[in-house]
């Protein structure tokens, strides 16, 4: 990437200022079809788009028409729940994001993104792990700073000794005969005392159990008027909201939404598979934001940033199954109380044959690490981008978030905003 490079020093956090910002990382697994989700609405690109996707294109008008974001781009109508947040300046979209690596493998791409070291498989830690271990603004005494909502912990948190995985908080309990479970737990404390990885995991689990029990977690009632979509994605977001409101010190949480590998039957708009999935995705994010957007002490959105990303986008040209195969360029959504919202960001590479990556895919013009680095430095107060993303140098800021006042970050935003 050409252009001036910022030194990390420019974004340094004042020493001793604790940072209570919350970051939620939503991983969209399977490779979301950004060209159906953020379709081009006008110009030559619209013509290329309609020619490449005769059956799965999102129309400009009529039934199932895209919702217009600006003169050039829209969003899929199933993302309607996010429209208000966009218009209120709480959300923006970065187009043509992705990996500076040439894989079209789900599993390679996810791993590269989550380790934060594209092209290197063997990295022993995730990017969030390295953020947590290098962040000067994180209060070390927090009880539960890192939450993985679900059973499996994602690679972005690989190697983090503090992450806890929770599916539903009220069921985070030690099952057994009530008369003896305390004795069993005490015995486990005496037994898991070695220095092995298994001992470490067991102690972490026993500690988390103590904290969660102490918090006396019951059933969760979201804020008035908030309804999460049914299913695992809504449930896990609900879990995160509940955990945040318990004030146990959650600073980072991860959540997955799967099912995006649409080689087949995306469905014609407005009905169909992709529409249903997008409705769950958008409904979940909107409900979560609203749930945390209370007044006074119940307001968490003022310190909330959410970022949603996928391992890649899909092939520009549809296949014969009303789907699209694995592609390259993707898109990211950033949402939160201090986002420079209501904007479509990034440099649009175009959809002519010459502009496509290898002639077939949306190109990547913004390294996904740029987006994450702006959040990490601008909101989370961690200037050590070199530790979080080794070997990566930030490009000029896209201005994705409003920097916390200490950073004098807004002045650095160049005029590349669309």
């Amino acid at each position, binding site marked *: 990437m*050409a252009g001036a490079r910022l030194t990390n020093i420019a974004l340094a956090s004042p020493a001793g200022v604790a940072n209570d910002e919350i970051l939620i990382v939503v991983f969209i*697994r399977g490779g979301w079809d950004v060209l159906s989700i953020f379709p081009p609405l006008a110009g030559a690109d619209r013509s290329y788009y309609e020619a490449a996707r005769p059956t799965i294109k999102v129309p400009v008008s009529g039934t199932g028409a895209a919702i217009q974001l600006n003169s050039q781009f829209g969003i899929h109508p199933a993302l309607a729940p996010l429209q208000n947040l966009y218009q209120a300046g709480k959300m923006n979209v970065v187009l043509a994001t992705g990996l500076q690596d*040439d*894989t*079209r*493998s*789900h*599993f390679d791409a996810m791993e590269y993104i989550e*380790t934060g070291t*594209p*092209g*290197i*498989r*063997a990295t*022993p*830690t995730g990017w969030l792990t390295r953020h947590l*271990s*290098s962040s000067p603004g994180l209060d070390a005494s927090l009880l539960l700073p890192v939450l993985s909502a679900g*059973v*499996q*912990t994602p*690679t972005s948190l*690989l*190697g983090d*000794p503090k992450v*806890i*995985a*929770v599916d539903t908080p009220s069921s985070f309990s030690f*099952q*057994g*005969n009530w008369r003896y479970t305390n*004795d*069993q737990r005490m015995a*486990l404390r*005496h*037994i*898991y005392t*070695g*220095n*092995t*990885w*298994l*001992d470490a*995991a*067991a102690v972490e*689990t026993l500690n988390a159990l103590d904290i969660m029990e102490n918090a006396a977690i019951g059933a969760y009632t979201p804020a008035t008027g908030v309804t999460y979509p049914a299913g695992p994605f809504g449930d896990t977001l609900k879990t995160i909201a509940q955990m945040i409101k318990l004030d146990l010190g959650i600073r980072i949480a991860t959540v997955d939404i*799967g099912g995006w*590998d649409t*080689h*087949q039957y995306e469905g014609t708009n407005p009905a169909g598979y992709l529409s249903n999935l997008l409705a769950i995705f958008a409904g979940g994010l909107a409900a979560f934001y609203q749930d945390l957007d209370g007044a006074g002490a119940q307001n968490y959105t003022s310190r909330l940033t959410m970022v949603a990303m996928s391992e890649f986008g899909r092939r520009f*040209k549809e*296949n*014969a*199954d009303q*789907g699209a195969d694995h592609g390259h360029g993707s898109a990211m959504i950033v949402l939160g109380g201090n986002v420079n919202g209501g904007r479509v960001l990034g440099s649009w590479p175009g959809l002519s044959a010459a502009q496509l990556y290898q002639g077939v895919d949306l190109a990547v*013009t913004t390294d996904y690490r740029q987006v994450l680095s702006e959040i990490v430095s601008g909101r989370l107060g961690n200037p*050590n981008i070199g*530790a979080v993303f*080794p070997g*990566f140098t930030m490009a000029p800021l896209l201005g994705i978030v409003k920097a916390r006042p200490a950073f004098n970050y807004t002045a650095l935003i160049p005029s590349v905003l669309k």
Partner: protein
Amino acid sequence: MSKKPKPDLSRRDALLVGGLIAGAALAEPLIRLATPENFPAPDTAPQKQTQQNSPSDLPPLPPLSVIALNRLAYGARPGDIDAFNALPGASPAIQLQAYVDQQLNPSAIDDSVFDARLNSANLTPLTKTLAQLWNDYYVNITVSGIANYNLRLPPVTAVRTATILRAVFSKKQLFEVLTNFWHNHFNVFGWDYDYASATFAYYDHEVIRANVLGNFRQMLEAVGASPAMLFYLNNYTNRATGPNENYARELLELHGLGAENYLGTVPASSVPLDATGRPIGYVDEDVFAVAKCFTGWRVNDSSTQSGVVNDGTFLYYPAWHDAAAKTVLGHPIPANQAALKDGRDVYDLIAAHPGTGRYIARKLCRRLISDNPPQSIVDAAAAVFTAQKDAPDQLKQVVRAIILSNEFMTTWAQKVKTPLEVSMGILRATGVDFTTISDAFFWTFDRMGQPFFGCRTPNGYPDVREAWLGTMSLLNRWGLCNTLLGGRISANGVTWSVDMVSQTPTVAQTPAAIADFWIQRILGRPMYPASSRDAIVDFISQGRNSGFKMTAAETTDLVPRMVELIMMCPDFQWR
């Protein structure tokens, strides 16, 4: 925008040594926080650094009987360790060979007691042909004029029940362990209410089990032509007018050559050749060509083409096939070949490629030995794989070479049991007697993150310890010990129970004696470190001096809880 230079193929190749994970979104099991100072520069492949426990922290190597029964079986049932020790042979290594040769010849094992139990479970989908399954569970699901999609599930439900019964009660343990390995390797999400669930009994029996000890090339084609896989990876609609690459990509990346041999999007012409004259790996051009080779590989389903029989069997449909010439892995596929020949050529090329041998060998070693198996045994197993590529018992020979290696016999505690292994192990060790399984079991089991045939992504469940050590997974693992043995699981009105008091010898009357009996019975060896045994004795003594004689009421109350506790300990969790 400046792009990163094209990947350096030699660097990719160097990464082969590091191994790759089998699972989604989980990398190598390493715990070492990187700092800017010690993080390697991005253009150098970092050295693998498995977290090292100092030798005093690791448990000592247990007897070979314990290693074998915890890695080649779902744990020891009462009497299994004695039976191993009674095998002919002057040393444990020779006894291991006798054990493995028995286990790798499963048709010669008298399993009649288990067979009777399985028969009594009345799992009727297991007795049906593919066409019958299709008719009974795919086509005929309408009740009173309304389609009831739950009627698509009995085959996968029956396979799940049979899988658990076999894991717990069958003597053909290594066959079951390997069946699980291959199911996971050729993963199909079984609960789709569609082609896979309705035909899952066929997929399990005729596709996976029929080839577990057989030939990899044959297995590839059996999988690729099965309705479950054709549907799951969308090949059943793959046609010349707009190929669907889903199956082709995963065939190369997951089933065959493996991601360790994927070189990305560089031109095929730029890929170096190996010593055998083959490209050292595959690129996206190969994926595109393979997708074309499999156009027209379909299922006889309800699609409305003339001549199609709706019976769920395989269909080669020439009208959808792209008959143009292609090149796959540097090998020309001529135009207008005979029916099926394009796809079969692809299977031949994949099965014969040395990269496939290394990938499959590494994955088998990862299952049977350790998360990062030594390169020496991977190379040795890969050599067998390649040398025996046409042998009808190729996979049996590969497995035998791995198990009878020094690496197998001298490795311990590099892995933790998966949820499946630990739960089957509990049921085996304690002798729970059952033939039906209630949902109550799955409520806890599934929350450990490994529901049967429930992995939605085609890479299957991860086979590295990091995947199973999360707080939720461990908590439910401990909970399962209590649930399974605490009288909390009932099915058809019968509570799963096991009388641990009557299994305790009458001479063991004090807490210490009872604890020592059950530690040996469950673990087959003393606990490590010795202080763990003290904690067990303290538990059953309930804080009293451990030399007293326990009353009947106390043993009834405390022995099951103590056995649960032993199973929560690291000595039961290592493998």
